[in-house]
C-alpha cells in the first residue's frame, strides 16, 4: 500500500509545502542564525577595530578569541536585569522586545539565493522599510522610560535623525523601483542579471549607503549612543540581556541594510563561479566591513550638521537623481 495515497497525508504534504510552513521554518532558522551572526559580527567589529588600531583585538577565549562574543553573551544572560526605581516600568520592559522583533521580520523577503527566500512578498521593500521604522519607536520608548537625561537626549536625537534620513533613503530606492517596476526583491535581483544597478545609479547607491548607515545609527552618525557625550545614549540604563537585545537589533539592522544594498545595487546572488548564496553573503559582509571600517576612521558628526547634511545635501541630490532617472526612462 502506497503510503502517499493516504488522504490525510496529502493534507500534510500540502501543509508542508505551504507558505505557512515555509514561514515558520524560515523564522526558526532566522531565530537560530541571527544571534550567532551577531556574535560573529561583533567579533569581526572588534577584530577590525583592533587591527586598525594596531592591536590584535580579543585574543583570549578560543584561538584568536573567536569564542569571545559567545562567552560575552553567556555572561550577559547571567546578569541581573536591573530596573532603576524611577523608570516607567512597563515601557522600560517592552522597549528591548519591540526593538528586536522588527529586526527579525526584516529577513522575510530577503532573497539570499533564488531558492533561499522565505517569501517573496510583493511589497518586500516596503515591508522592510515599514518594520525598520518601528525600531525608532522602541528607541524612543527606551530613552523616555529610562528617566535619564542622557537617554532622553539620545532618544530624541534618534527620532529626528530617522525621520530625516528615511526621506533620502526612500527617494534613492525609488530610483531603482521605477527602473524595475516591482517591489519584489527577487524580481529586482533578476533584473540585474547582466548589469548591476550600482553602475546605472551610482549616486543613488551612495545616498542609499549613507542613509542606511544613519538609519542603523552607525558611526559617523551614531549620535544616538555617542559615548563621548551621552555616555551610552538611549541604553544607558539597560543591563544584562535587555542591553544585549539592543545590541542584537543594532547588528541585525546592519545586516538587513547591507543585504538590501546588495539586492538593490549589487545584483544580489549574481556572480560567477560560486553559488548565489555565497555571492550574496560575500557582498553583504563586504558592505558590513565597509561600515565598520568607516566607524573606526571618522569622527562623529554633530547633530545640526547631521540634519543639514540630510536636508541640504542628500535630499536634493536624491530628488535630482530621481528626476533624471524618470526622464531618461521616459525618453528611452
Amino acid at each position, binding site marked *: 500500500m502506497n503510503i502517499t495515497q493516504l488522504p490525510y497525508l496529502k493534507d500534510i504534504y500540502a501543509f508542508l509545502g505551504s507558505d505557512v510552513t515555509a514561514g515558520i521554518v524560515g523564522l526558526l532558522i532566522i531565530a537560530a542564525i541571527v544571534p550567532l551572526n551577531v556574535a560573529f559580527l561583533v567579533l569581526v567589529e572588534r577584530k577590525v577595530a583592533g587591527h586598525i588600531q594596531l592591536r590584535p583585538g580579543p585574543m583570549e577565549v578560543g584561538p584568536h578569541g573567536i569564542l569571545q562574543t559567545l562567552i560575552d553573551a553567556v555572561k550577559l544572560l547571567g546578569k541581573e536585569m536591573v530596573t532603576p526605581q524611577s523608570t516607567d516600568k512597563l515601557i522600560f520592559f517592552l522597549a528591548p522586545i519591540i526593538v528586536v522583533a522588527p529586526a527579525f521580520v526584516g529577513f522575510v523577503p530577503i532573497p539570499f539565493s533564488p531558492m533561499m527566500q522565505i517569501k517573496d512578498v510583493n511589497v518586500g521593500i516596503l515591508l522592510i522599510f515599514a518594520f525598520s521604522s518601528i525600531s525608532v519607536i522602541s528607541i524612543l520608548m527606551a530613552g523616555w522610560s529610562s528617566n535619564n537625561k542622557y537617554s532622553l537626549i539620545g532618544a530624541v536625537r534618534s527620532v529626528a535623525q530617522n525621520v530625516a534620513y528615511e526621506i533620502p533613503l526612500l527617494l534613492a530606492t525609488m530610483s531603482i523601483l521605477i527602473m524595475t517596476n516591482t517591489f519584489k526583491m527577487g524580481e529586482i535581483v533578476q533584473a540585474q542579471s547582466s548589469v548591476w544597478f550600482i553602475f546605472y545609479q551610482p549616486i543613488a547607491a551612495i545616498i542609499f549607503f549613507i542613509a542606511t548607515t544613519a538609519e542603523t545609527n552607525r558611526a559617523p552618525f551614531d549620535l544616538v549612543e555617542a*559615548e563621548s*557625550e551621552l555616555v551610552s545614549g538611549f541604553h544607558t540604563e539597560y543591563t544584562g540581556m535587555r542591553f544585549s537585545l539592543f545590541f542584537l537589533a543594532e547588528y541585525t539592522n546592519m545586516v538587513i541594510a547591507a543585504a538590501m544594498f546588495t539586492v538593490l545595487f549589487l545584483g544580489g546572488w549574481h556572480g560567477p563561479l560560486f553559488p548565489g548564496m555565497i555571492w550574496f553573503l560575500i557582498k553583504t559582509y563586504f558592505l558590513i566591513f565597509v561600515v565598520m571600517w568607516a566607524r*573606526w576612521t571618522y569622527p562623529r558628526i*554633530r547633530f545640526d550638521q547631521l540634519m543639514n547634511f540630510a536636508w541640504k545635501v542628500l535630499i536634493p541630490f536624491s530628488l535630482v537623481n530621481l528626476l533624471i532617472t524618470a526622464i531618461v526612462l521616459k525618453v528611452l
Partner: protein
Amino acid sequence: MLNPKTIDDTSIDQRVYTLNLGPQHPSTHGVMHLLVTLDGEVVLKVEPVIGYSHRGHEKMAENRTYEQFLPNPARMDYLSGMIFNHGYCMAVEKLCGIEVPRRAEYIRVITSELNRIASHFIGAMDYAMGLGAITPFLWGWDDREHILDLLEGITGSRLTYSYGRFGGVRNDITKEFYDGTRRFIDRLRGRFWDYENLINQNIIFIKRSKDVGVITKDVALDYGVTGPTLRGSGVNYDVRKMEPYSAYPEFNFDIPTREEGDCLARYQVRMAEMEQSLNIIEQALDHLPPGPIRAKVPRLVTPPKGDCYCAFESARGAVGFYIASDGSRIPYRIKVRAPSFSNLFVLTEICPGHFLADVIAIFGSIDVTVPEIDR
C-alpha cells in the same frame, strides 16, 4: 551658534534643565564635573565643579624638606611630569642660587620636550576622541609609547619621572637613548602626514572644530589663559621665549600661533608645537655639551630667606612655582600657578550658545588635566 540671550525668557523656566557631565563621564579626563544648563541641546551655562582629586600638595610642601617635595610636582600634571619636575628644580635653584651645568640643562630640555610631545599627543588625540574618532587616539598612544620607552630608559619610570635633582639630573643619558631619540624624531616626522590627512583634513573634523569655542584675545586676557590654548588665539606668548630659562635661549625654534581662536586652531597649534619640539630636541642632541650632569650641591639644600617666583612653560601653559622660604630646610609656602585652572574657567565664557556636543569638543581642545587644577 545660537545666542542664548534671544531665547524668550518667559518660557525658559520650563525648558531648561541641568545635566551633570561627570564626575564619572567618558570624556571629562578624570574626575571633572561640569554642571551644564541646557535648553534642548543648546548650552546656556556651564559651571565647572572641581576638587574631586584634591590631595593638598601645597600643604604637603609645608611639612617636608625641599628634596622630599621632589616627587610631588610630577603628580600635579601627570602628563607633563618631567616639565613640572624641571620647573620645581629650577625654582629651588633660583632660590638657592645654584648654577646648573650646561649638560644637565641640555638633558633637561631634551627630556622636557619629549615629555611635551607626549603630552601634546594626549591633548590633541584626546580632542579627536572627544569628537568620536577613536583610532587616531590609539595611534597617538602608540607614538607616545616610544617616548615613554625612551624616558624609561634613562629615568626608570614612565609617567612620574622624578628625574631632576637640584643642580642637575639623576642619570646621564645613554647611547641607546641618544640613538633612540634620533630614530624617534625621524619616525614621528614621517607620521605627521597620516595625522594631518586622517584628522586635520577630514571634513567632519573641520566642521566640528571650525568656529567652535572661539576665544578672543580679550577673553584670554580676562581669564589669564596661557599655553597652546592662548596661542590658538593669535597671541605668541610662550614662557620659553618671553622669559627664557634653562637652555632654551640657545635653541632656534618658533612659536606656532593661529589667529582663529577656535578648537581647530588650538588643535593645529598643538600639532605644530610637536614639530617645533622635535627641532629643539634635534638641536640639543647635536650640540650636547660634555661635562658633569650635577652641580656640587649639599645633600639637603637650605635656601636663604626670601621668596621667588619661577615661571616655566608646561604642555598646558605657563606654570609658576611661588616659593617662600624662611631660611630653613622646609619651605614656608609653595604655591603652584596651574595653567589648567585658569584655562578651565574660560569654558564658562565660551560655551554658552554652543551645542552639548561642542562642550565636549571645547573641553577637549582646552586640554586640562584635573589633578593639576585640584592639586
